[in-house]
């Protein structure tokens, strides 16, 4: 019987002549990625045959170069004799926490590449102290002894402590032979001793960073000692039941619903925190800091502040930089004395999430003209640079709706396990896709939706106004009076229902991208900048791991710039929140950024709606603004005509 050996697992297995490499892999316990289950259409089970006798069925999913290098599809290749097979990394089936792993890497990458190095000094730290026991020569009182010892390690001139701790302190110190761990929390210019524990517990100090989005809430559990992201969790904001957009929620709050909204978001955050700590066997007690970044309205709702004036001329909020408060006071369940920090906002309509984004991307100290586009329910755009020693930043906010977050789209979902995050339409009209976690698809997330719309346009399945063309593909059909495109048929989806994109979904996506592009364009115009003047674009948003920049240009979400100028930076709101959580310097930088950024109100630009309408086309009504897309479509069309 032929023997098949797999690298790099270095396992081998004997199989019947004529079985597929996929079957051999299964027998050998080597997990290969596959979506189609062996039909030869997903192209995920690519392996390299090093040597040996095989028979491979022809496929269009491999190019000539790959075939020469020995690539085959495991499911379409029969074993005829002894074979050596290498499983490339992309084919190894991965289960697990892909989302955070990559995000954590990105976090570091951002840190390094932009040379934003903040000193590691978490907002809440644990300090193990060995106090000298009192004697006649050293008869300082307990509290002062504690302060003195802390000041030996840290330069904290002003400290405070609650009565509860003051009362518990003498016994605790003596019982533990003057060896204690103090939890220190930063409150403005003061440092508060939040907690005193016996012995050395300093290795267990965790914090939570939360991106409080209008549609999506993301929480990361961070080891404050190492800066490592332990785990991440996301959910849709349950406040959505009270309105998709912030204005609806403000109105709901005005009508007596503030408390309800406050409870709802706190409940969401608590659910996320509970999931994170229980999954990682961490005691709530060891979490003493939460940093939240979100738009100004969301911060108001979280803290239970009246948001009503935000939506009324002159659009002033209750606070843009609320002080740190006891998390328990708000209802957030961490250490009962732990602190809640809200990243300061720039204005009523540009919140702490943008401040965090500016921090995370290092935009405030870039010597290039940089644009940050944060795609969320409100799309925020920032343009800025550092010039002659001082930096300017201009921001605006465009109401895009939650389509790119997978909400308001029939089969949309957030970028979590089972979400289609990558789509390609092959020349023969088949749909190739990849899901988060490489599992059966449940729905489509933002990056998948961008790929999909771009793919549909390129394939000629939609026209430039986004209308599905029924005769163009057998996958386009009518259901309940509306056209839709079948992305994944029921038998291949995890939901056992067809995964589709409807005409209405496409329109929502077009509206969302038009709002963001129009905002970006008006901001550029008002600064007298041309697209060519933008030296770098950071594209941010909760898209998960992946975003195809070329496709984002293809649909006209971002200006047509050379790809090397564009970087996908993921969820910068949570990255920034995490940076602030881990570094007092970063936190202080947030305060500085929030104060120095300028807010442009798009409502005051009479041409905004006009620009929006012009952008509601693929890629844009002014085709010449997207030369690369024009070229791509031209090539495509030429190919089509030559067929």
């Amino acid at each position, binding site marked *: 019987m032929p023997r098949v050996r797999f690298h790099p697992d270095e396992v081998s297995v004997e199989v019947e002549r004529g079985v597929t490499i996929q079957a051999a892999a299964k027998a050998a316990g080597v997990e290969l990625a596959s979506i189609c289950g062996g039909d030869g259409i997903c192209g995920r089970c690519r392996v390299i045959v090093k040597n040996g006798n095989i028979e491979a069925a022809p496929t269009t999913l491999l190019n000539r170069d790959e075939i020469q290098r020995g690539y085959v599809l495991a499911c379409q290749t029969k074993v005829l004799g002894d074979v050596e097979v290498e499983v490339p990394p992309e084919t190894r089936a991965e289960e697990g926490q892909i989302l955070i792993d990559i995000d954590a890497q990105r976090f570091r990458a951002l840190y390094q590449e932009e040379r934003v190095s903040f000193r590691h000094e978490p907002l809440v730290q644990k300090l193990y102290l060995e106090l000298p026991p009192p004697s006649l020569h050293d008869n300082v009182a307990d509290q002062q002894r504690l302060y003195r010892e802390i000041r030996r390690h840290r330069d904290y001139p002003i400290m405070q402590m609650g009565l509860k701790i003051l009362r518990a302190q003498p016994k605790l110190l003596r019982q533990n032979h003057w060896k204690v761990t103090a939890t220190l929390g930063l409150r403005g210019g003061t440092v508060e001793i939040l907690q005193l524990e016996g012995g050395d517990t300093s290795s267990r100090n965790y914090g939570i960073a939360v991106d409080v989005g209008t549609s999506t809430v993301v929480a990361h559990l961070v080891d404050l000692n190492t800066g490592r992201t332990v785990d991440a969790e996301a959910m849709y904001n349950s406040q959505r039941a009270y309105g998709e957009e912030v204005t609806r929620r403000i109105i709901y709050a005005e009508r007596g619903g503030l408390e309800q909204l406050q409870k709802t978001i706190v409940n969401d955050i608590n659910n996320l925190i509970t999931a994170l700590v229980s999954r990682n066997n961490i005691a709530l007690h060891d979490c003493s800091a939460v940093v939240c970044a979100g738009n100004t309205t969301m911060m108001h709702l979280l803290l239970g502040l009246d948001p009503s004036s935000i939506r009324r001329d002159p659009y002033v909020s209750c606070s843009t930089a609320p002080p740190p408060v006891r998390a328990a006071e708000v209802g957030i369940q961490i250490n009962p004395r732990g602190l809640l920090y809200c990243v300061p906002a720039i204005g009523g309509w540009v919140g702490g999430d943008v401040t965090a984004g500016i921090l995370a991307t290092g935009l405030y100290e870039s010597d290039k003209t940089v644009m940050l586009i944060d795609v969320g329910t409100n799309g925020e755009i920032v343009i800025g640079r550092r010039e002659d020693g001082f930096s300017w930043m201009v921001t605006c906010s465009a109401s895009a709706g939650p389509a790119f977050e997978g909400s308001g789209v029939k089969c949309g979902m957030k970028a979590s396990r089972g979400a289609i995050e990558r789509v390609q339409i092959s020349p023969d009209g088949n749909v190739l896709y990849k899901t988060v976690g490489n599992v059966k698809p449940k729905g489509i997330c933002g990056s998948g939706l961008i790929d999909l719309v771009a793919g549909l346009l390129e394939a000629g399945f939609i026209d430039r*106004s986004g209308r599905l063309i029924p005769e163009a593909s057998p996958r386009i059909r009518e259901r309940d009076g509306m056209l839709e495109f079948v992305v994944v048929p029921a038998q291949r989806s995890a939901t056992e229902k067809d995964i589709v994109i409807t005409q209405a979904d496409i329109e929502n996506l077009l509206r969302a991208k038009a709002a963001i592009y129009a905002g970006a364009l008006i901001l550029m115009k008002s600064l007298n900048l041309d697209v060519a003047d933008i030296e770098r674009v950071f594209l941010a948003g909760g898209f998960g791991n992946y975003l195809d920049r070329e496709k984002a240009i293809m649909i006209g979400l971002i200006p047509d710039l050379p790809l090397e100028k564009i970087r996908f930076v993921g969820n910068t709101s949570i990255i920034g929140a995490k940076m602030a959580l881990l570094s007092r310097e970063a936190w202080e930088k947030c305060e500085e950024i929030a104060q120095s950024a300028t807010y442009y109100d798009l409502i005051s630009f009479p041409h905004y709606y006009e620009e929006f309408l*012009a952008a509601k086309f693929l890629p844009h009504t002014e085709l010449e603004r997207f030369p690369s897309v024009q070229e791509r479509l031209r090539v495509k069309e030429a190919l089509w005509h030559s067929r």
Partner: protein
Amino acid sequence: MPLAIPDVKKTWTNAINTVTLGATKDEGGTRTKKVTVGGATALPFHHFEGKMPYPPAIAMEVWDVAPQDWPEVLAEHFRDVWHDPGLWAKKCVEQYGADLICLRLAGCDPVRQNRGPQEAAQAVKHVLESVGVPLIIWGTGNDDKDNEIFPAVAEAASGENCLLGTITEDNYKTLVALCTAYKHKVIAESPCDVNIAKQVNILATDMGFKPEDIVIYPTSAALGYGLEYVYSVMERARLAALRGDKMLSQPMICDIGIEVWGVKEAKASEQELPEWGAQRERGPLWEATTAYVYLLAGADILVLRHPQAVASVRQAIKQLMGDGLT
């Protein structure tokens, strides 16, 4: 001391497309006359800044069925012929000097007689046989119905190089395909929106249709009913075109009669509104005034109804074209 007056003349980089309607026998049609519009290299009638090689053309409106709701001051000119679109068209050309005939297939409208494709094609053929001028054929505006009748209509007029309309962003594929197949020109309609005007043109050209074969219909409004909005949309489109926007460089058509004769300023009789003066003068004047404004905004083809309006607009065009004045 004489003050030097600076030369503020504008020069533009782009010209409006020329569109020729009608095909003679040599060209595969049966027209005895062709009409060319467009070609301007400056704003309308700015002869000092550029050329305006072709004067705007006047099309007179003819229906495939006798209209029921035309006011008497209008109906009285056509009642003798409107039972027969051929005779009606002939009268417009021979008696009133229409450059073009705009055949509106109103009878196919589901809310009127809901005529079918064969009757529509018949009417088209009949008008073509009756007059030698080029033809504009305007559908019902009902998407499904238009898609049903136009295949027969476009075929019936095959080779005649007619102007067919309208396509919209919601419904363009059928008519664009037909105009490609039967070599007609197409009217691209947009709802008083310069972006959508451009988008419809792009959608049609994405199907391989030549941008030079499109005429823009930016919608029309009667004087007093939003005319200024249309004016500014037309003006913006024309400025963009002269600055080089190829997707807005098409000539523009204004459908004026149907708008004007639907508003009370033209429709109301003296009995109803005696203080407004004689309807017989007021109606045509309202139509002509509306038309003047669109001439200045850049209209290349005007679809009119009343013979008096036709006469006075023709006079205006003549003067504006610098007839003996330059």
